[in-house]
């Protein structure tokens, strides 16, 4: 839970101290969300908020424990938004033990490939590496380009050699901006209609906020006359 909420946990903390750290981190995390959440999400939260004060009965007694690993070597990639993807991976116990035993094992690498179309990773135009450890099993990856396909490989670095352990599915990162008008289209009318949609007011990630100045001018003009 401390990891989930991004809390730094010093070594040798007691259970009580750890609980306090997690509670504080969770509170900060939620406060940050409340500040940045969209209206629809804030409204939806009130549906589940019954404002309970006090400790509910312990109902976790029968809680099922899920395995940390399914004993298979795989990696999966999920698109979160046009700037970020999420990858999770798993290792077979035999692979993990081999790496732990090997003196030459230097670590794992997430090798991120970008492509214009779905091709084998050998034919990918660009790639970059993210070093991870045997303790990691998930990672958020900043995606440099839009209108691009990404695939990721889990690679073990053993001495001077690299072993590709698993390759993910492909994700398609869309363009998060307004398409340019075709040369024969009446751009001005489209701009004026887009200016009415409230798009400028949406809390989209920075890359999506690239609304052409000519549309922003139309929004200002419209506000002036309202």
């Amino acid at each position, binding site marked *: 839970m401390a*990891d989930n*909420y991004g809390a730094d946990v010093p070594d040798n903390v007691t259970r009580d101290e750890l609980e306090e750290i997690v509670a504080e981190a*969770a509170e900060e*995390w*939620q406060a940050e969300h409340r500040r*940045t959440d*969209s*209206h*629809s*999400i*804030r*409204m*939806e*939260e*009130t*549906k*589940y*908020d*019954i*404002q*309970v*004060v*006090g400790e*509910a*009965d312990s*109902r*976790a007694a029968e*809680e*099922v424990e*899920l395995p940390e690993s*399914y004993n298979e070597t795989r990696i*999966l990639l*999920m*698109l*979160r*938004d*046009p700037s970020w993807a*999420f990858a999770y991976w798993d290792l077979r116990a035999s692979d993990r033990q081999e790496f732990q035993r090997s003196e030459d094992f230097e670590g794992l690498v997430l090798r991120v490939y970008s492509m214009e179309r779905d091709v084998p990773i050998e034919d990918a135009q660009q790639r970059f590496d993210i070093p991870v450890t045997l303790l990691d099993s*998930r990672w958020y990856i900043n995606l440099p380009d839009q209108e691009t396909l990404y695939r990721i490989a889990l690679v073990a670095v053993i001495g001077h050699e690299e072993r590709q352990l698993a390759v993910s599915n492909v994700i398609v990162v*869309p363009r*998060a*901006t*307004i*398409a340019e*008008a075709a040369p024969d289209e*009446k751009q001005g*009318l*489209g701009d*004026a*209609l*887009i200016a*009415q*949609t*409230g*798009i400028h*007011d*949406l*809390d*989209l990630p920075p890359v*999506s906020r690239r609304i052409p100045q000519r549309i922003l001018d139309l929004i200002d003009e419209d506000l002036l006359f309202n």
Partner: protein
Amino acid sequence: MKSGYLVLLLHAHLPFVRHPEEESLLEEIWLYEAISETYLPLLRVLNRLEADGVPFRLALSISPTLTAMLQDELLQERYLAYCDRLIDLASHELERTRDHPQFRAMAKRYHELHVTNRREFAETYERDVTRGFDYHYKRGRIELLATAATHAYLPLYIQHPSAVDAQIRVGVESHLRVFGKAPRGFWLPECGYAPGIEDYLADHGIRYFLVATHGLVFAGERPDAGVYAPMMCPNGLAVFGRDHASSNAVWSADEGYPSDISYRDFYRDIGHDLPMSYIGRYLPGGRLRMNTGFKYHAVTGKTDQKLPYDPDKAARKVREHAENFVYHQTKRVHRLGQLMHSDRCVPPVIATPFDAELFGHWWYEGLDWLDAVVRRVAESDDLSLVTPTEYLKEHPEHQVGSPSFSSWGSKGYSEVWLDGSNDWIYPHVHKAIERMGELVERFPDENGLKRRALNQAAREVLLSQSSDWPFIMRAGTAAPYAVRRVKDHVGNVTHVYEALSRGAIGTEWLTRVERRHNLFPDLDYRVFSPRSGTSASR
């Protein structure tokens, strides 16, 4: 012809929360509150409009998990007990406020509300609230849309075609079973769209769906009508874009109508204000403070010194806000019409979807506002309410284009359902989906106990996918419950998977789980066939 159209869409949804193994559970109150404060009062609005001869058109989606709970005998019985408890509290409130004229009118209202709710629930709808909506659906005044089986946020399952297909297929089948009519529209949970979803929808007979504003504005082809006319996907499905500006007038916590100082405050509640010696018997275990729904104060402003709520003052504000909303939408359709008519001959349509539970539950006066808006629009020469299907029937030709990945969540994409607080669930839920596919391949045509076990495993996979669990984990309000639910459902899939591998299913265990998670009675586990899904996804 009117200058423009307004689609008012309410999306009603709650996750499947039903615990026969426990006498009562805090989270079951989500359903009871929604029935008392939103669904029954909404039906009263629709019935009043009908009785007064006011023409109206609304769109409404009711999720399959919600209809399953609304039709469940155990929850119906528990809801009646909830009503009885609140009627008893309301009677005591009449007594307590006898010498407090500033609160007395509201105490009377609460008493009337709960007595009316109980009577209508038990007698008018014979415990099944879906009948009330079905009545107006069959008369064409409301259009009901289908939605995903357990309200899965579909973009995060796009790598698992069988899971997306199962959510849509079971959602459509559930709609047909409850309302006896094939749906034409589909509400994508959280407006979550990823390219390709339209192909699954088309496979199940859907004709249109809605996306967030930027789903159309950032479409592959520049939208030449903004979001004020649907776009036709290349596969022929129509897609309406949410109008952010009109939604914002209501949604915005700071600037929206509900934040007006005259309206009833949501947070100030006698469950927290009154001594335990009085209120304790109406609270869980007699010791946990929580909302009771009895609230006597107005928003007032950013202060703890809340003023007593004045229902007459609030009613005047409701009329003013309804007038304001209709005035602005009328003005907007004129402006939009000028821009659109110069280029094409379709009148603009403004699509404004809301969470249904916003009305009545969070915004106490919201349903009165809706009633007033409908009446005001009915008198308008320029603006008309329309259902998406009616609009498409009148105006079937639109620009062809491909919508963009989008949702109505914070920052416009998937961050609410995929962040540090909830991302741990996906390896497990994805594994459950994959194991279900494997079971379908290994046991393609089972009967008897094995079939029951496989069908239950399919229910558990669907339940594990509810968007509510990651949402609640992130919100933090009932996170332990959401964690428990994901673990329970994935654990149950694992149990069936391992038991079938061993060739030994325990009847007692299976019966217990079937009784707990009893939704989708006609579910066929083969909906998770890895070969199911649209041809485009294979």
